[in-house]
């Protein structure tokens, strides 16, 4: 099921909220959330829940053993968990890609498996791996209740496309939580803002991207290619951060405080900072669990950097462009490391912004084109080697027709939600006035999003496929 669908907004969510409110104890509320979470995941394709449950059972047992008192079992439990989880992702996500490449390199003709990828596998698998490792490292106490552990993994706000929530973040709240009026209000606002990011901005921006990149990207002009890839960069930000906003908002509604996943990434001053602001939960996973790993038995920041960015690329998908994309970012972070922070700061801010925006935008182009031949054409078309000219009439018309949408999207990349607080402080506006204005805006965005949803076919979030 998709958050940005009428069935979710006006069927699933109200029903879940009513049942949740009717339950009096945390225990019964957990049960309600668990049932709705499993229903959410099973919606449309019930068979996939079997693999989720299998993963939960294996990692529940591994967590108990890894964090248990029987010393001989601790390490093997982590090993079993890692082999199982990486194996699961390997089979469901990468087996086809691996076989295709083996056939291409060695000239063999092994059958290429076409396994349907399980939605959200990369997210929940990383969650359970972090849980088992944290149990082993004694950073968290293993959860003894199977149902509570199942709730942690399957909690529907974050199950399908993150953020990758660490068990320690919500462990306390699984046992004891209350939803305050403030949390409920913040949660609802945050959810609607995320919904609007997805439906009002991302889905509309995607129409432009699809019109240009979706059919004949090789025929785009220089400016047309830049136009399409800039719009795609905005699209991917609003699509993914919109989902994260909805997840965080839903979490708050049910009393869970999930960590932020985006901190206005386009405001970054360099690429290193971009990755401290973009998909934070994935970056912190690799920082905590992969970066300290000695590569070939050696602790060296360059080898670790290469490993982390190779894995970041691979995590995003089973295509070469994602691997190129990951290593591309690794190369720029290496460059910034070599230059050093002090020297980076001496570069004029305008140049730093220009540099990182160029890298980010071209990076998203690499991210888009899974076909490496098309990727090559895209990179050529960004330059004056493009044989299609500078700017076509169709591209100009698209830009004029969508100028308002694009300007609105660019403005929304800034931290607009800090405005009410600023207004309160600077002009002494009353809490009630700011709160009333906020409610009007949220209601307006909900109505607008609903109207757009009635008129559109539901588009899944891009990160569902990861």
């Amino acid at each position, binding site marked *: 099921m998709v958050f940005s669908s009428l069935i979710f907004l006006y069927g699933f969510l109200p029903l879940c909220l009513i049942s949740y409110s009717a339950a009096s104890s945390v225990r019964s509320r957990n049960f309600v959330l668990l049932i709705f979470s499993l229903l959410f995941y099973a919606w449309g394709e019930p068979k996939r829940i079997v693999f989720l449950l299998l993963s939960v059972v294996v990692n529940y047992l591994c967590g108990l053993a890894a964090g248990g008192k029987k010393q001989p079992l601790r390490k093997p439990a982590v090993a079993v968990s890692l082999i199982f989880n990486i194996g699961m992702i390997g089979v469901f996500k990468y087996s086809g890609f691996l076989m295709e490449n083996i056939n291409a390199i060695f000239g063999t003709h092994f059958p290429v498996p076409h396994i349907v990828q399980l939605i959200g596998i990369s997210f929940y698998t990383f969650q359970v791996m972090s849980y088992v490792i944290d149990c*082993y*490292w*004694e*950073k968290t106490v293993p959860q003894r209740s199977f149902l509570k552990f199942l709730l942690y993994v399957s909690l529907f706000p974050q199950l399908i496309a993150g953020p990758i929530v660490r068990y320690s973040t919500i462990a306390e709240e699984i046992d004891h939580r209350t939803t305050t009026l403030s949390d409920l209000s913040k949660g609802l606002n945050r959810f609607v803002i995320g919904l609007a990011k997805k439906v009002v901005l991302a889905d509309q921006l995607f129409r432009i991207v699809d019109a240009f990149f979706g059919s004949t990207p090789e025929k785009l002009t220089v400016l047309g290619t830049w136009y399409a890839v800039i719009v795609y960069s905005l699209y991917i930000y609003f699509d993914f951060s919109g989902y994260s906003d909805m997840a965080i908002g839903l979490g708050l509604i049910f009393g869970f405080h999930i960590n932020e996943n985006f901190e206005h990434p386009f405001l970054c001053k360099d690429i290193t900072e971009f990755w401290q602001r973009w998909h934070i939960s994935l970056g912190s996973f690799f*920082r*905590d*669990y992969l*970066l*300290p*790993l000695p590569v070939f038995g*050696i*602790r*060296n*920041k360059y080898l*670790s*950097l290469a490993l982390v960015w190779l894995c970041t690329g691979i995590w995003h998908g089973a295509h070469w462009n994602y691997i190129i994309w990951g290593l591309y970012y690794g190369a720029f*972070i290496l460059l910034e*490391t070599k230059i*050093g*922070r*002090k020297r980076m700061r001496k570069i004029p801010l305008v140049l730093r912004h220009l540099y990182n925006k160029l890298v980010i935008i071209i990076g998203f182009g690499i991210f888009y084109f899974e076909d490496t031949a098309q990727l090559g054409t895209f990179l050529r078309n960004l330059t004056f080697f493009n044989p299609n000219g500078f700017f076509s009439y169709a591209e100009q018309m698209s830009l004029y027709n969508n100028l308002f949408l694009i300007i609105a999207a660019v403005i929304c990349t800034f931290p607009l939600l800090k405005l009410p607080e600023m207004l309160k402080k600077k002009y002494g506006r009353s809490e009630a006035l700011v709160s009333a204005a906020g409610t009007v805006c949220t209601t307006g965005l909900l109505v607008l999003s609903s109207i757009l949803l009635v008129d559109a076919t539901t588009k899944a979030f891009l990160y569902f496929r990861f």
Partner: protein
Amino acid sequence: MNREQVMAKLTEIFRDVFDDDSIVLHDSTSAKDIEDWDSLEHINLIGAVERHFRMRFTMKEVSGMKNVGEMADILCERAGK
């Protein structure tokens, strides 16, 4: 090697890794106090400490160290074994 000697050696290593002779270490010194001490430089620092003290930190230790004091504690504990 006592704790003071460990801290003195660590100071040398920190100054070398971060290329800053003004670094003075205390138990509470953490990544917040040294500008270039980020997660990536932490790996180089750990590598340098391991080479100097001829020991190997576990993944848990590398990931969990909060400050220089904790690093020194681990080194003293290993030296005592």
